[in-house]
């Protein structure tokens, strides 16, 4: 196939990847932050210590995270059908991505929050701050730089996940590389996709590093 025909297809694949990745970053980033905060806050000895809630969250994260995504996709089928209405297509696939990304990011968030000096949290409590205010004005600002780096890391992971979108007919750059490159023995096409993905990752990582450094002005 010539690039005359491949070009628009590649552009379409890029659009699909962008759709999957951006939605996952927003939704997964949000729920990951909430879950991560939940893990941190309910940990024994912390602000909202709650043995049962912590145990449930902790086990959930530990169970979901290590499952290979391609298997997770299948296992999540019933839930996907419940929420999206179907188990194939880009919406169904993105739903699964959001789900996995939330759990991956939850652990990253929790690990970054744990490094905050508990004394700072205690000082805020001593000044009469409520837990919600402490989350907003102490935990997130104090851990902002590592959170940004964690989010950048999440981006790369999400991009990786999106590559197998073809399995559920979601398309995307990974699917493009397999269908028009690998299966056609056209290494040039595969190479182009690889270069595009590497460039995207480089740009995003550089952006993340810069933002993190700015957040770390201390």
């Amino acid at each position: 196939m010539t690039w005359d025909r491949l070009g628009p297809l590649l552009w379409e694949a890029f659009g699909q990847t962008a759709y999957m990745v951006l939605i996952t970053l927003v939704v997964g980033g949000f729920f990951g932050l909430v879950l991560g905060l939940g893990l941190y806050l309910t940990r024994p000895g912390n602000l909202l210590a709650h043995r049962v809630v912590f145990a449930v969250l902790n086990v959930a994260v530990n169970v979901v995270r290590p499952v290979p995504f391609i298997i997770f996709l299948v296992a999540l089928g019933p839930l996907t059908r419940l929420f999206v209405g179907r188990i194939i297509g880009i919406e169904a696939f993105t739903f699964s991505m959001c789900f996995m990304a939330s759990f991956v990011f939850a652990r990253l968030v929790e690990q970054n929050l744990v490094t905050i000096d508990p004394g700072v949290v205690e000082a805020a409590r001593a000044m009469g701050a409520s837990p919600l205010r402490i989350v907003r004005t102490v935990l997130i600002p104090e851990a902002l730089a590592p959170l940004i780096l964690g989010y950048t890391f999440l981006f790369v992971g999400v991009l990786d996940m999106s590559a197998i979108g073809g399995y559920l007919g979601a398309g995307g750059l990974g699917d493009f590389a397999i269908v028009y490159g690998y299966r056609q023995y056209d290494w040039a096409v595969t190479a182009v996709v690889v270069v595009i993905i590497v460039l995207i990752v480089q740009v995003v990582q550089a952006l993340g590093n810069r933002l993190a450094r700015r957040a770390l002005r201390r």
Partner: protein
Amino acid sequence: MTSIISFRDATKVFPGRGRGQDVRAVDGVTLDVRAGEIFGVIGYSGAGKSTLVRLINALERVTSGDVVVDGVPLASLGEARLRPVRAGIGMIFQQFNLLASRTVAGNVAYPLEVAGWSRARRAARVAELLDFVGIGEKAGAYPSTLSGGQKQRVGIARALATEPRILLADEATSALDPETTQDVLALLQRVNRELGITVVVITHEMDVVRSICHRVAVMEHGQVVEVGDAYQVFSAPGHEVTRRFVETALRDRPSSAVLARLRKRHAGRIVTVGVDEVAGSSAVLTRVLREHGVDGTVVYGGITEVAERPYGSLTVELVGGGGAVEGAVAALRAVTSVADHGTAAHPAPDAGPVTPPGKETKR
């Protein structure tokens, strides 16, 4: 004076981890802190003093008993009701606990934001506070660029922001060098005198108590083993722990090793005479020796201040004919505490070379 903080049989038990035993960090403490004083709580690490101070602003809740702050019994209050109580009590910490993501001004403004002050009022109050603690020019700096002393000044400014009636200082000078410690202690004293704020100081350094505290409680194993006027506790320590603390602060009494060396250098009778406000001063010593025709040479000792009153001891070699020395010692015993170490030829090992004078007068 009325009491502003009142511990009533307050007990705090931390459940043991795993199969570990429960820890009674604070064990049945009954104690009153008077409005307007600087109250010291001294003890070795693990004595429970940090937990005790956290009961005052309910960062830790009592297991049994109660703590009454400004007339409000805390044990019965829920978490949400405690927040305004906490906001009315300032606290400073050993490690300062400043927000690294905020400037100095931002840190001092934090409690004002919590209390809902408007932006304009906050700015004016922050400027006033930074001025009071003497770091007005650092308003825009981040904490990481400050020295320890400057950080603690920010901590104090932050703790004073909402005009609390009580300031809690948890080992506030333990991370500072000796000179900076004196600056910060002087600042705490100003806070007490100029603003009338009751200050509760937690420390393991007797020097801190000696410099600024009006009254002091000594803690061991979660219990208050001695409490009273700082000067009284110093000059007549009634508990072993107190005695050890007093020794660390005042090195005016010769140890047995020092005494052995003194006896080598000085053949005459060696006595340690207590010097304090109640029992006498070095003027008394001079007068007694003159009256009895005894020569006295100061060979060891020191006089310092406790709670701004003179305190210490002098070790002197007494030389005189006949019973003159005996007479002088007897006359001194009548007005102050005396530890008789005997002479080089006839040492008196039972004199207790490191015994503070107060203990002697009590016997």
